[in-house]
């Protein structure tokens, strides 16, 4: 496969919805268990970092520490939900459960399958955001005037991280090897994307790097702006960055998976 072929727009049909439906049905079987993590996790982080550690921290940019990290917690959950769904989750369905093999024996194509998986990953991110927003709003940590905008924003962010996860699924030799991108990419982002301390405290070079290459930076920034209720123009820059990178990676990830599966 030549490089240019990875950027060819794949033909995806509405059949990808049936793949999304399949994953949604599995999710609904354990709905109580699946709703618990996005509900409990922010409470734990807020208790330990926001209200515990936060007492020793001065306001950041005029905002109490708990309010500073609350939007970041949503962003982190958006990242984890779709990245894990489209890496470990998709890999298990592809390799161990042979779900993809079964589906492509029907009129559903491999492009539809991967598109359905990516849409489902984004849906998981959106569900997490939809659970966390009211919980965090209840503590008065986000401005509720635009808070609902976080939910579609989470879907977009979910697509982005889903596509990233899917690219790794397409090249990973085995399930253990997915630990590498988690350790070298996801975890550093979790810590250094303006999540628990402002980006501008880092050396300028690192800041530029984060803005150029770390997707979570833009998700955190976007959700924080919406959460503060201050829709500044810089939000448009974050949106544009996410949209462009997301569009490219969606195309690339589908083509990479096609290359892995169609032999």
């Amino acid at each position, binding site marked *: 496969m030549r490089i240019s072929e990875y950027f060819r727009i794949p033909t995806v049909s509405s*059949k990808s919805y*049936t793949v999304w*439906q*399949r994953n949604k*049905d*599995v999710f609904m*079987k354990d709905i109580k268990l699946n709703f618990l993590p996005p509900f409990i996790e922010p409470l734990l982080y807020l208790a330990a970092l926001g209200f515990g550690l936060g007492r020793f921290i001065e306001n950041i940019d005029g905002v109490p520490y708990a309010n500073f990290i609350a939007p970041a917690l949503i962003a982190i959950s958006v990242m984890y939900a779709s990245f894990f769904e489209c890496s470990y989750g998709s890999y298990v369905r592809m390799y161990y*459960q*042979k*779900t993809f*093999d*079964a*589906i*492509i*024996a*029907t*009129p*559903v*194509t491999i492009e539809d399958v991967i598109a359905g998986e990516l849409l489902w990953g984004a849906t998981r991110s959106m569900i997490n955001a939809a659970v966390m927003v009211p919980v965090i709003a209840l503590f008065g940590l986000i401005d509720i005037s635009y808070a609902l905008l976080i939910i579609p924003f989470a879907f977009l962010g979910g697509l982005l991280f889903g596509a990233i996860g899917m690219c790794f699924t397409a090249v990973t030799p085995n399930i253990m090897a997915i630990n590498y991108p988690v350790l070298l990419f996801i975890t550093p982002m979790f810590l250094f994307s303006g999540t628990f301390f402002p980006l501008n405290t880092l050396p300028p070079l690192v800041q530029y790097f984060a803005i150029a290459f770390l997707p979570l930076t833009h998700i955190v920034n976007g959700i924080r702006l919406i959460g503060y209720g201050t829709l500044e123009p810089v939000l448009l820059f974050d949106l544009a960055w996410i949209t462009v990178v997301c569009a490219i990676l969606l195309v690339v990830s589908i083509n990479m998976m096609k290359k892995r599966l*169609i*032999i």
Partner: protein
Amino acid sequence: MKKYKDLLAVNDVSFTIEEGEMFGFLGPNGAGKTTIMRMIQCVSPLTSGSLEIFGLDAMSHQREIKSHIGVVPQENNLDMDFTVYENLLVFSRYFDIPRGEAERRATELLEFVHLEDKRDTMTESLSGGMKRRLILARALINRPKMLILDEPTVGLDPQARHLIWDKLRSLKKQGVTVVLTSHYLDEVEKLCDRLVVMDYGKILVEGSPSQVIETYVGSGIVEAENNPELIECLQRKEASYEIIGDLVHIYTDNPKQIAEYLTMECSLSKLTARPATLEDVFLKLTGRRLRE
């Protein structure tokens, strides 16, 4: 033709399967059977050559072709996250079968494969035979014109195998074209109207089971213990034979005559005459060396 990086999996193969017939692909492991099955299912593109299914080109009409095909793959790939019944319903959605119709078909098919009692069991906890039967039911949810089975009875007990055979025969009666691969040669001999034997990506023979046996080994086989005297005797008679370790197989259309000749002329006593089977053809054509 199908080429992987440095492996020619299927090479210069040409075959036609008639509508409504049961067609078998035989061959040792790695012969290219599964690759051909995957090509017919439109999930593995051809490197070169052409393949038409229902008169449609396999490379450009994948969706249409796949909507009329049912597949029983070699490896079980039931959806372990669902129950038996849900497996059929979820699968029916991939074919855009409306819900009500899908429910009717699912119930009907569970009866067809005798799994109605297992309706709400998770597929993980089914036995091997039950899983195979459920896969057969799943392959029929779209009422396929052609059913493709890759090793349908592998690892099953005789009861389960007979049940599957029975179901395949009744599907054939309903006009479904059945294409299968198998290592169980008795299975193919019993079921298939026509077959091909493949090895190293090529088709070696094609025909009905009886034709193939007749042409390649004759209708009968005499087995005798290997000793120099016997070989000399056979060479004198110009008989067709093969030495397999301690045994000698003599291929003939008239086993009785050969057996008599050997007892009379060569004073041999340990002889068994039996009808030739596909297994004899298979081993004669593909050799006895173990494959990976």
